[in-house]
């Protein structure tokens, strides 16, 4: 994982120099794991010490109001750092209104949360700690509590040069850790590298996925399997959740939510921003015949409804093939990576 971070920094350096022209030239090559070059984060450069600290904090319930809940309680590694519950429960047993987002290849994302209200992982990490229906803590108390632990200040010194514990340093460390959540070793990746072969169903599913027939690829763009944008996919004729509009105030954004990555989608049920679908089969039922022509329905889906259709009209065989392909996006090495789990001591 450290190699991956160094690799990203080097590529970012190359890009900075190649940027003399303002265009992108051939020096901007993908990494040999198939993902785009990792962006550079000059305001919070990744260090091994910062990652170690972020890992401890991510898995430590010390960040919650009563010391019972950590980030990892709702962002569980075996579920692609998502939550199998439709709505996560906070320390007081309160439920939210959206399914906890997965955290897969977040370093490439330019916004966080379903509605994109946080621009960076650092910004994102501030919210759940102080959200009264989540970790329900006071940041000033959290900072004091962390600083009072004898082993934390030295870890902050190692990561940031001095042993000062601050809210900014806490979220920066967590962001450094999360940027190492790199998933790029699924069967899809290995097939692209020529290491394994797809089954007939996986091939059919892949071809359908990357076609205008199923229209998956425009939003779930490979290799990240998300375009990082916001779309209304016709879940509701009159969306009860403002979605992106809650962050922008723009009516045109109503009912739009950020495209989730499909990497490890097999294990990240339930699906959609509100966790309304329990299975991939239910998701495909929606796309096959349940799309609502909501006011801001994405045209990529909407064009399929021209003439009165209610969906993509996928056959049972096509649905099975698509699911076979989606399961090829599961990355066991990511889901079981011990470096992303709780520290051993």
């Amino acid at each position, binding site marked *: 994982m450290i*190699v991956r971070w160094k690799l990203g920094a080097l590529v970012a350096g190359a890009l900075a120099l*190649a940027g003399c022209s303002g265009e992108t030239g051939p*020096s901007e090559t993908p990494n*040999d794991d198939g993902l785009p070059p990792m962006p550079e984060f000059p305001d919070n450069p990744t260090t091994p010490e910062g990652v170690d600290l972020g890992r401890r904090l991510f898995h430590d319930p010390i960040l919650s109001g009563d010391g019972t809940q950590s980030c990892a309680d709702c962002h569980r590694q075996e579920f692609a750092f998502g939550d199998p519950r439709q709505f996560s429960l906070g320390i007081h047993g309160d439920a939210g209104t959206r399914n906890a987002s997965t955290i897969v290849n977040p370093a*490439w994302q330019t916004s966080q949360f379903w509605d994109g209200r946080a621009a960076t992982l650092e910004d994102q990490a501030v919210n759940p700690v102080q959200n009264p229906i989540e970790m329900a803590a006071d940041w000033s108390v959290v900072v004091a509590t962390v600083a009072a632990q004898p082993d934390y200040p030295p870890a902050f010194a190692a990561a940031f040069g001095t042993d000062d514990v601050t809210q900014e340093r806490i979220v920066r460390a967590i962001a450094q850790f999360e940027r190492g959540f790199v998933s790029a070793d699924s069967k899809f990746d290995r097939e692209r590298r020529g290491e394994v072969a797809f089954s007939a169903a996986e091939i059919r599913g892949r071809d359908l996925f990357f076609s*205008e027939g199923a229209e998956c690829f425009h939003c779930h*763009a490979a*290799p990240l399997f998300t375009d990082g944008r916001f779309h209304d996919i016709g879940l509701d004729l009159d969306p009860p959740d403002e979605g992106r509009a809650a962050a922008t105030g723009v009516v045109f954004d109503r009912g739009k939510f950020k495209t989730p990555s499909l990497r490890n989608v097999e294990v990240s049920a339930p699906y959609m921003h509100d966790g309304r679908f329990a299975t991939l089969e239910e998701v495909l039922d929606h796309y096959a015949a349940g799309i609502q022509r909501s006011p801001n329905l994405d*045209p990529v889906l909407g064009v399929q409804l021209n003439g009165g259709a209610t969906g993509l009209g996928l056959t049972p065989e096509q649905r099975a093939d698509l699911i076979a392909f989606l399961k090829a996006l599961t990355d066991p090495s990511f889901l079981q990576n011990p470096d992303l789990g709780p520290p051993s001591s």
Partner: protein
Amino acid sequence: MNSRARLLPLAVLLLASGLGCSDKTTEPVGTGTVVIQFSHVVGSADLQIGGVSYVNSSGNEYTVSNLEYVVSDFEFHVESTANGEEDFDREGVHYVTEDDATTKTLTFTDVPAADYGEMHFVFGITAAKNTDGAFPELDTAGMAWPAAMGGGYHYMRHEGLFVPTGGGTASYTTHLGPTAGADYSIPVTIALDATGPGRHGFAVAAGETTTVVLQMDVNQWYTAPNDYDFNDYGAIMGNAAAQALLQENGATVWSSVDPGA
């Protein structure tokens, strides 16, 4: 592959990129900066994403939900070579999306001082360069064109709603790209009057910055020389005839306007 072996090619790239720029920084005299600003209009109105309706030459009332595209390989041609002026050219791609202002500017920092009378660029990416994975940032932006449909990248995604014949609401998705591997990229040449009363500020002086506004009239995609009626087209990524028709129209969508206008 061990980590050192993985890093080596990238280190070479880093070096090569540095060399590519170093001669520009050691000999800055005689060069200026050109900032290209991308502007999008519909007729005489600035393009608005969302609820504003427009009408094309086929009478389609439509709105725009999304506009994103790729331009590449800019060339600036000098008006005269009498004093040793040379053309400027730079290979590379640039991604523009209406909803991100940072993409709507392209800067060249090493343009020889001269009066430039013509600009040339490619709308999209020429076939030889338009290959899978060649431009990772276009993959990240969701501009990949599936391998089974020809591979490479979209040239443009222009999407929205329109009122179909008979009323109601329908959607259009004008996705341009290398259908079946064919090259539908569009060479665009814009003649500039660098010295006359219609000049667009495209004279580059050493050490100074010149701004050029490139303006796309969205309606022109559907107007000249071919009318394009949204009722006649759905998803067109596999429609070679539609790609060819829009390729012809694409030559007239661009103009250069006075940045002070």
